[in-house]
């Protein structure tokens, strides 16, 4: 789920950046450092929307670096256990399929794929129902439910299921009506 929250961070700035554009340099450094990172608490920081407040800088002892406490607003993405998400399938193999929902990688193992869907290998490996009506292959969109998440420094991993009601393929790529 996406959130728009206020976060705070202490930014260290090298004295060479001091000058008339100090604030801009600080904001640029903030964006470079924070956008694209993950934390366990907030999830994945997608984009910084604005800087709310930059506090007074404190010069560190010994080095000339100055620490500024910066309050900023950002859009973050964090998957929750039990959440329903739409994702795009990236790889299908006999163990299940991998899907991506933005920066999140989700694995749905075949334990959690409905029993009537069977794996078909070939040049386009897929999971198909016995009557061929529903097909999951690369680039299909699926609606899945998250049953476990794990966050590390740069990526978020989830386990998902499509075994419940209303889950499964939304859109079939290249479907011939």
């Amino acid at each position, binding site marked *: 789920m996406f959130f728009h929250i206020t976060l705070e961070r202490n930014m260290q700035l090298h004295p060479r950046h001091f000058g008339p554009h100090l604030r801009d340099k600080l904001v640029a450094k903030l964006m470079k450092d924070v956008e694209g990172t993950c934390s366990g608490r907030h999830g994945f920081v997608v984009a910084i929307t604005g800087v709310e407040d930059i506090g007074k800088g404190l010069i560190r002892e010994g080095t000339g670096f100055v620490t500024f406490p910066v309050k900023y607003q950002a859009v973050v993405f964090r998957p929750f256990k039990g959440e329903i998400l739409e994702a795009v399938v990236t790889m299908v193999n006999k163990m299940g399929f991998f899907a991506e929902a933005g920066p999140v990688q989700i694995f749905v193992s075949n*334990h959690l794929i409905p029993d009537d869907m069977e794996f078909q290998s070939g040049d386009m490996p897929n999971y198909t129902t016995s009557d061929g009506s529903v097909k999951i292959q690369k680039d299909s969109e699926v609606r899945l439910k998250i049953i476990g*998440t*794990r966050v590390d420094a740069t990526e978020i*991993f989830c*386990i998902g299921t499509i075994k419940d009601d209303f889950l499964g393929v939304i859109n079939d790529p290249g479907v011939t009506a």
Partner: protein
Amino acid sequence: MSLGAESSLQSSSSSEDFAAFLDSELELASCDSSPNEGDVTNNEEIDPPQRSKRQKMEGFETSEDLETERLVKPIEEHIGTSTLGKNVICPPHPGFFKGLCIRCGQIEEDESGVAFGYIHKDLRLGNVEMARLRGADLKSLLHKKKLILILDLDHTLLNSTRLVDVISDEEYLLRQIDGMKDDPDRSLFRLDSMHMLTKLRPFVNNFLKEASSLFEMYIYTMAERSYAIEIAKLLDPGKVYFDSKVITQADCTQRHQKGLDVVLGAESLVVILDDTEVVWQRHKDNLIQMERYHFFASSCRQFGFNAKSLSELMKDERESDGALATVLKILKRTHQMFFDPALGSDVSTRDVRPLLKGIRREILQGCKIVFSRVFPSNSLAQDQPIWKMAEQLGATCCTEVDPSVTHVISTDTGTQKAHWATQNKKFLVNPHWIEASNFLWQRQKEENFSISNLPSHTTVDCTAKAQESVQ
């Protein structure tokens, strides 16, 4: 509402009992697909305490009431909880994706199980899960009438050399590459990102196309992953043959040994094509050893051959009867024998290993061999590799001559046994006859392997030599 109405009917049951009854019914409904038909005979399947409750209840309720109760329960059951919660029996966790169990989603910092880094870098599977996947794979492959083929890369399907190792006589190849850009049949490639030059073995594209209709193919190489992926792109640009089936050195569970434990396929269906036997100690019965493809000079030097390489001689294996073409015939034959309808309709118990053994035994069947000056006489003859190879090919080996002997293998015409052979009109050949028969899957003409033909340095390519002598 209907529940409320019912509780008034059950005058002799307290509300506690009713709640307990509901609980037991809910549990039953989840593990038993047909909870109650109001049928006493069904009770055999239920635990005694629940049965007694049901019997007590049935005394007071009509089957109609049971019907309505059953209607209410499924709705209660499904709201808010997934079927997952009821049926999951985890632990034992079947496998892990970055520490998360793939069935229940719990984080377990468990490093057990086998890592399947070639499918996804953070995937690990437990033994039970692997056995289950192998069983499912076995069924689906037998249904599609396919076996499994594991291919080695270097010296089997191609030969690579580093650009720095290219000698002056080979530089014409570099000039040729520029002209080859759009040629669909090109076999020489320059991998700039790896600073290497690669030559695909003749016939490899046809080989892969034909083999893919009979086998599910994997690449298993002791090279690094980056190199293996580059080569897979050359051999399989459409990602049809080897998509997520490229196993490299990093995936091996034992150092310097390849194993079928990282292959999600049943061992009884696996045929391996590799130029080295040493790395397949645990699976020798599945292995078809291929002759090494030495195209580049650096490859010959690496193996200690001083002969000129194919690139220096500006020659190459012939497509029509080269090593890959020969092996393809054997693979087709094995496949045909495995799926032979004359053997009955149950394919699941068949095994490809005895078939390979059988095919090999036909090559030198009927030959009785004595060795002379091939290995030291004080060593144990039966342990010699050439003895074992001859026996694998179906020949009988013995240490002493007798009238039933058909061949004498020797490196020298002057030995006692060699004289005996010429006197008694027996075949007198050099040891390469056995090796050539092994690689070419055919008993070779003894005339081509006479002892005077034995070159002072070992031949590099049996196939090329055999093709020469055929001419």
